[in-house]
């Protein structure tokens, strides 16, 4: 997995609540057997007309947000399906950080597995960032995971919480499977014990 490094980028505002995985990547794009190439289909039904032309007033089609790397989103972002194609599509588009008041659990986990950082903040702070994002391309925010800080274009610093293990994995680009395999002896021991206690499993 790639390492998560401090960066400054454009933030796009998407205040709609309950943005679901079917909006992020509609099911007709789930037929690929690859992990890449989903960015062009990100938010497909909100972003394009049926003839393939762009819907002008969709936020990521506006000139100032076309290279956004941060999304400031409404509550309960990523609700719905377990499809990892949702973070794959965001990542492939170039989004590295999503800020909201809450995320659906599965989406939240899936994002970390792909080197992305979903950040949960209280409503007032999301409102501050939403306002900053509305300024467009001049409003570059800085995300520093090590310090757990977002700095707005005005220099306001907002602290955020992140699980220590997930932070460690992101900063070092660690592969979960490799880490778990180091604990193989524990898994072997568990299997032996559980197998004796519940042989029918």
């Amino acid at each position, binding site marked *: 997995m790639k390492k998560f490094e401090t960066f400054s980028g454009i933030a796009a505002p998407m205040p709609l609540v309950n943005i679901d995985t079917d*909006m992020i990547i509609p*099911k007709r794009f789930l037929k690929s057997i690859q992990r890449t190439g989903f960015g062009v289909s990100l938010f497909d039904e909100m972003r394009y007309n049926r003839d393939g032309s762009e819907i002008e007033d969709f936020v990521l089609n506006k000139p100032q947000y076309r290279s956004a790397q941060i999304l400031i989103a409404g509550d309960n972002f990523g609700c719905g399906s377990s499809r990892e194609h949702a973070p794959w599509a965001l990542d492939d588009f170039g989004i590295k950080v999503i800020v909201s008041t809450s995320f659906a659990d599965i989406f939240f986990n899936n994002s970390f597995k792909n080197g992305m950082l979903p950040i949960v903040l209280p409503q007032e702070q999301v409102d501050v960032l939403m306002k900053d994002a509305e300024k467009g391309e001049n409003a570059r925010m800085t995300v520093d995971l090590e310090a757990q800080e977002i700095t707005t274009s005005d220099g306001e610093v907002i602290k955020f919480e992140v699980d220590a293990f997930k932070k460690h994995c992101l900063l070092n680009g660690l592969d979960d499977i490799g880490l*778990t395999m180091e604990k193989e002896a524990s898994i072997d021991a568990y*299997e032996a014990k559980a197998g004796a206690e519940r042989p029918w499993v």
Partner: protein
Amino acid sequence: MSPKTLYDKIWDAHVAHEADDGTCLLYIDRHLVHEVTSPQAFEGLRMAGRKVRAPEKTIAVPDHNVPTTAGREDPAQMTEESRIQVEALDKNAKEFGVHYYPVSDVRQGIVHIVGPENGWTLPGMTVVCGDSHTATHGAFGALAHGIGTSEVEHVLATQTLIQKKSKNMKVEITGKLKPGVTAKDITLAVIGETGTGGGTGYVIEYCGEAIRDLSMEGRMTVCNMAIEGGARAGLIAPDETTFAYCKGRPHAPKAGAWEQALEYWKTLYTDEGAHFDKVVTIKGEDIQPVVTWGTSPEDVLPITGVVPAPEDFEGGKVEAARRSIEYMGLTPGQKLTDIEIDTVFIGSCTNGRIEDMRAAAEVLKGKKIKEGMRAMIVPGSGLVRAQAEEEGLADIFREAGFEWRLAGCSMCLAMNPDQLSENERCASTSNRNFEGRQGYKGRTHLVSPAMAAAAAITGKLTDIRELM
């Protein structure tokens, strides 16, 4: 020892390793796999030269993409991309040696129906699948939840998941249900109460007399939609209803092992005085037959209600409701029973089991669907289909004017050819009414099987109690 919830007990029995910060490796007893969320995971194993650690605990079945029309063995019935995914699962199942039910097998069906039906899902287990509706298996008192593809690969390689414990939430449905009210109405009513984010961070245990009174099929319907309330998993403590369902299933324990398992399963309940972080109580008699009016499963109202106005809501929901009402082509104040329906879909992992078929047949017996109505019933598995044929239900459906299909996910998510066209309006027994879920610009109203059957007859969303 301090009192434990059911969730605490199952969790504790599956921790293979715990780090100082509370991050655990949770051992997985059953891993269910389908064609859409697994190809990248198998490819990852292949590239790293890894094997499936426990192929005997891994069960694969194609369901999302498969056509549900006769003659589907013909690859021409699938789009090229769907065919590639199904073929990839065929190949991966064979190469990695996992249990497999191909399309040609009578036991093939929706993964969440196949698991319980064949006795793979049992009380006290941990069950995962790259599909959010894995919550279904919680009906057995199994800790079951959806995972992403990276986690699918992680479970294939290590038979564990990296997890932190969720919080405990109790949802109690007291008393008896009124006539016409079903498990689907319970689960939708709960989401209407808590919202789609209300369960985020929690595992829900459903309890109370109305839950105890449900069959296993009904309990699966309730747990299936725990995820629509934001909870990764829903649980119901196993009891005699559960044990009777499991007994004799092909992969359930036999003879002496059965007695040993039963003894353990009977310890799987929440202890008196155990702590819940959140409690929701709903009176069973207050629940009415419900429908959804919008594009989020929390947009639930009793069928006797009217379409709300955006101003009825607060905060970000005002804009979301405005968008939903426009998308759904509705008018605030419009009676829900005045909404005309073009299509009826009965099926899915929410309502594709034999009891759902029976409920629909009871309404449809001796009736005809409205002229011009497109109506399909898609059984959740080949075994459900066979049983419905045997019980004469299939004849009732055909005579009423329904298409009687082969098993699969079908129009629940419309990855196969079963889709809504633009602005087509559907009464559906599935689980999600998201924009575009059943087809581009398609409009979905979530209902119970009996309500779906009623809508097929009248051509409108209908209060089932008026047809009883």
